């Protein structure tokens, strides 16, 4: 299962990188979001994969999943969301001001 989850993560990163390298704001935002999801998954996976080991203390349970990465992921999700929301608004503003959705703020120059 490890290789499968790693591959899954890798594909998300690859697609995220590809989208971030596009010229328009829309795919760039999609790519950043995708990479954000991938990074959340990555952080979570550093705690390893365990099924049925919830982090709720109870007398019946002796082992728990690693809670530390989970705490990190929670923080990461929220901050990632804040950044994406800001980027969305920024891209809207850029479109309003510059009249283009190109990330450089202007249409590409014809190749010299």
């Amino acid at each position, binding site marked *: 299962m490890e290789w499968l989850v790693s591959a899954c993560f890798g594909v998300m990163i690859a697609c995220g990188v590809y989208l971030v390298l596009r010229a328009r704001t829309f795919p760039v935002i999609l790519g950043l979001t995708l990479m954000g999801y991938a990074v959340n998954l990555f952080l979570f996976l550093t705690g390893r994969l365990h099924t049925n080991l919830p982090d709720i203390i109870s007398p019946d349970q002796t082992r728990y999943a690693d809670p530390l990465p989970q705490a990190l992921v929670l923080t990461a999700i929220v901050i990632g969301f804040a950044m994406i929301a800001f980027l969305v608004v920024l891209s*809207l503003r850029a479109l309003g001001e510059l009249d283009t959705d190109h990330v450089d703020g202007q249409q590409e120059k014809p190749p010299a």
Partner: protein
Amino acid sequence: MKTPLPPIERVPDCCRGGLVSSILPLLLFGLLCLAWPRVVQGNIFAVQWAWVPSLDLDLAFRLDGLGLLFGLIITMTGFFVSLYASSYMAGHQQLGRFFFYLHGFMLAMLGIVLSDNLFLLFIFWEATTILSFLLIGFDHHKTAARESARQALLITGGGGLFLLMGILLLKIAGESMTISHWAASGDMIRDHALYPAVFICILMGAMTKSAQVPFHFWLPNAMTAPTPISAFLHAATMVKAGIYLLMRFHPLLGGTSLWMATLVIIGGTTALWGAIQALGPCDLKRILAYTTLMALGVLTLFLGGRTVLSLTAAATFLMVHALYKAALFLAVGSIDHQTGTRNLDHLGGLVKSMPLTALAVAAATMSMAGFPLFFGFIGKEIMYEGALAEDMFPVFATVATLFANSLMTAVAAIIFITPFMGFGRQKMDPVKEAPWTMRLGPAVMGLLGIVFGIMPEWVSAHLIQPAVFSFQPDREEIRLVFFHGINLPLVLSILTLTLGSVIYRYRTFLRHRMNTAIDRLWITTPGLYQSGLDNFLRNAGIFTNTIQNGSLHFYLFIIILTLVMAVGWVWLPHVPGILIFPVISGPLIAIGLFAFILASTGVVVFAKKRLSAIGGLGGVGAGVALTFMIFGAPDIALTQLLVETLTLIFISLVLLRLPPMDAVKKRSRSRTIRDACLSLVAGLLLTTLMMGILQVPLDRNLTAFFEANSYIAAHGRNIVNVILVDFRSLDTLGEICVVVLAAWASVTLIRRTKEG
């Protein structure tokens, strides 16, 4: 362009500040005079405070004979220049700035000659470079001043870097950074493998500062500075810093054939080239600048020797030159100030209107030409003795000195006769004598040239000998005498005067031939400097435009590529060890989930319509949330779902506003392929990284703490929540701040958009 300041008779009120500020150099001069008798007896004043002991950097100051000689020259010239400037610069808008730089420079110069720590010396050395840049560029509204200042900074600053390199090499070679410890360890360094490198670096520092060929051209160009600055920096003090450096390093690095040959050749070439070029210009200040080149060359030439005679010649000529050159610069400044020109062709007959200045110039030029009874004569005699006593190339040294001196004699005649006796311009406007503040310096220094010329024994015992003893361990007695009897130096002196008058006779012809010859030179160092600078700026422009081309795609591509290469470089060797055979195993639901995520990711990338892409993104988010759910993290799953929903709503908002997809021009195919390759490599790299992490056993130390204390210390059963709100609550506060800031910024952006 040139607007001469109105001639002044009296010292106006506005320049009292200049008068007051000349107290500082006078005070320092007095202090040095107090110490003088003790230094002559062989005492040394030294103080030392630790500054950065770990770097061998101490605030160590030491006054010995050499420091005293330089210190007296610096403070005396500093005093006369300050006094002079109080009238010369009167009425200038930025007089305060001028005196601040000037005195800062003087203190830095004193710092150089009094430092006993090599790093400290370097700091003062750089300070003089910076301050001279500011002083040359003092009239910064003039393009020429700015360019000259930049040229001087680049050349002397570059030399400063070499000096620093030399100092560090010296430290690597195990030499003490305390200058006074050097006398004993010269042999160790001279036999060291690093010796040639150290020598070249130190020499580069000295050559750039003291304007030796081929770095000489900044000095004549620096004449765009106001005259007091030229007199102080470019005649008496700063250009002598390189000479001082060579003197200080003489016991440590001197005496090898490399040292002697290099210094004699460079010094001789500079002396000849400077003296020849001095015939060329009509501008009195430029002429003086070229004669300074000659003097610096001769000094370097003599420092190439190792006999007491050569070194005495250097120390003596240093004094001779400082006295007559500063006097001449100041006098030329007076002429310029009173008449509004310093062009030889426009000047003449000034002896009537400026008799006192004429007298001072006469004394200074006689010393420069080396007439008997003047200090210059003593200097010339010892110069020929020193040149004949060189170890390497004595004939070259003697011939170079002879020709340079003859040319000097001719130039001295030009400087005095043409403006004061000649009839350059038929009708000169009535000219008034300069105020006393501007006459005192040339007069006193001209007078000293006579006094020292009459009593050379006193000078040699009280100034030259202590100075030479400081860097020449042999301690042979040094006596300058008035008349040596009829010997080779005397013959050479007479030859010099004869040759000089011949050159003076044919000066117009020589000037013409010389100027045309220089114009024909197809390669010159000023030309090389200019083309080098132009090329440098052009290439810097090209370089900047290439790497800062304003394309986000380009920046991101480079950043990701660098990241991939840096991580790959370290990680790739470990990859073969962690590769596992892909076996599909594990709970069926997990496998299905991962397949779902993969499919959704594909949709995000390959969707033709934006709505489908957003749908794919939603799929990925939901898949990740479910993964969290299955593997024991229901809280995260909940948060992820919530946030994902919001994200989708936001992105859909953009969708409504964007121009249609059809309007978007497609990126070129090659670029798409290149991006895809980079993405694939990045993805593969991170996949292997993830696999590697999953195969390392988990370190549960921190986790164990949280598990043990969550309920006991924080009274919470949900460990993740306890970490967030209790153990790491400050992190959570930070996170909240980020969200607030992002919301704030977003609201501001939206509101402004609506208004606009």
